[in-house]
């Protein structure tokens, strides 16, 4: 039974009215605080490695390694999803979220084998981020090259 456009619009209005919204303010506070904590940890690590005399390149590399490694470990232990449930964007947006988005499908699709399962599905969430991240960087880089 195909409803008319008008009937559909009227119904969708009703749906909008009756569907509870996500608690936006609460989610924003959690995201701000948790994302802030992750970034502060990153910054503290930077300072630490800088004090230890590592070169600037190596400082960045080490901080990323530690954050990615911890996120992967927490995902494997089944803890990152509980964090994500509360923190939302706070744990998704930083580099830890990127690691989580690669490790979580890897765990799940390992049962379909290392090639067509783990290997193919590892990028199912992270893939689009990489593709459009690269595309954006090319556009920004081009603008920078010609106009700055």
């Amino acid at each position: 039974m195909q409803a008319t456009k008008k009937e559909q619009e009227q119904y969708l209005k009703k749906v909008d009215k009756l569907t509870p919204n996500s608690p936006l303010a609460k989610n924003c506070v959690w995201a701000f605080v948790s994302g802030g904590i992750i970034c502060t940890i990153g910054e503290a690590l930077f300072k630490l490695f800088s004090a230890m005399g590592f070169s600037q390149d190596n400082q960045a590399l080490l901080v990323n390694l530690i954050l990615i490694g911890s996120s992967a470990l927490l995902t494997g232990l089944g803890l990152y999803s509980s964090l994500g449930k509360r923190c939302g964007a706070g744990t998704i947006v930083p580099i830890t979220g990127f690691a989580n988005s690669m490790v979580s499908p890897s765990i799940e699709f390992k049962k379909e084998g290392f090639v067509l399962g783990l290997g193919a599905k590892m990028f199912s969430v992270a893939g689009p981020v990489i593709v459009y991240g690269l595309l954006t960087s090319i556009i920004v880089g081009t603008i920078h090259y010609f106009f700055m």
Partner: protein
Amino acid sequence: MLKKEGRSTAVFENVEVLSASAFGGKKEGDGPLGKYMDFIAEDAMFGEKSWEKAETHFFTKASRLAIEKAGLKADDIDYVFGGDLLNQCGASAYGMREIDVPFFGVYGACSTFGEAVSLAAMTIEGGFAKNTLCTASSHFCAAEKQFRFPLELGTQRPPSSTWTVTGAGSCVLANGNGKPKIRRITTGRVVDMGVKDAANMGAAMAPAAAQAIYSHFSDTGLDTDYYDIIATGDLGEVGRELLRRLLFEKGIKIDSSLTDCGIEMFDKSSQDTHSGGSGCACSAVAFCAYFYKLLCDKSIKRMLLVPTGALMNTTASQQGESIPSVAHAVAFEAR
């Protein structure tokens, strides 16, 4: 003579529900209906190596137990009508390797149990079978993996989302007059009101449920208070409220008797299931574990079970299509 009322309701005289069995996962076991289930699997893997195999295991175990509880053997069952949520109905197909009975695989998403029972009842009333078996299964982890995101991905579930029930419900229908009977079925039509949000399945399915319930009452001429309980499959809190309003607009007022298997299945406040339970197993387990017992001990005399299914195709959804839905009403009456 055609055994039909109105446009889409079939009437039966000789179909009884001989037995029912319900298997659930741990979360379902902890829920309000847990104490009525035959078996609760503490582990999501149910002793298997994958969630998909676990669901298959649920399917066969529940089917076998229903046959056993009916005092029958697999050879006594003329046909099995079964389905599940996995791609190409994987759980029922693989599960039926172990049950040597002629098999019809059915798919109606979460309305599968209603579809299976409808077809099985018609087969008996038509004189093509003495005993039939209906089974439906689903698995939270397998469904999330197939339709949504990996379990360990740190995402937030919106308040309108539902929780796929892990488990299987199975019942044996027979030609007889001793046990609770199936009196009528009203077969639903595919309804699409343009909902595209896969995290709000209740909203997508409510119009289908309204259509099936409205057709049932207009076909039969019955009053809504004819039924002690009218239970939809898995509309959840959001869908139930929408259904109530849609029915009201059509002139059907149902208050206390209207419930939803998904709402009954979990304790929303302590189990963090948001809008309620969902999945093929939702209505199957709720009926086989709970409502069937109420009919057997005559705590309720008549009930209308309306399993609801969002017939979403992930490819079509990604191409911008909305979610078509269907609901099938099955009227049970105590002896």
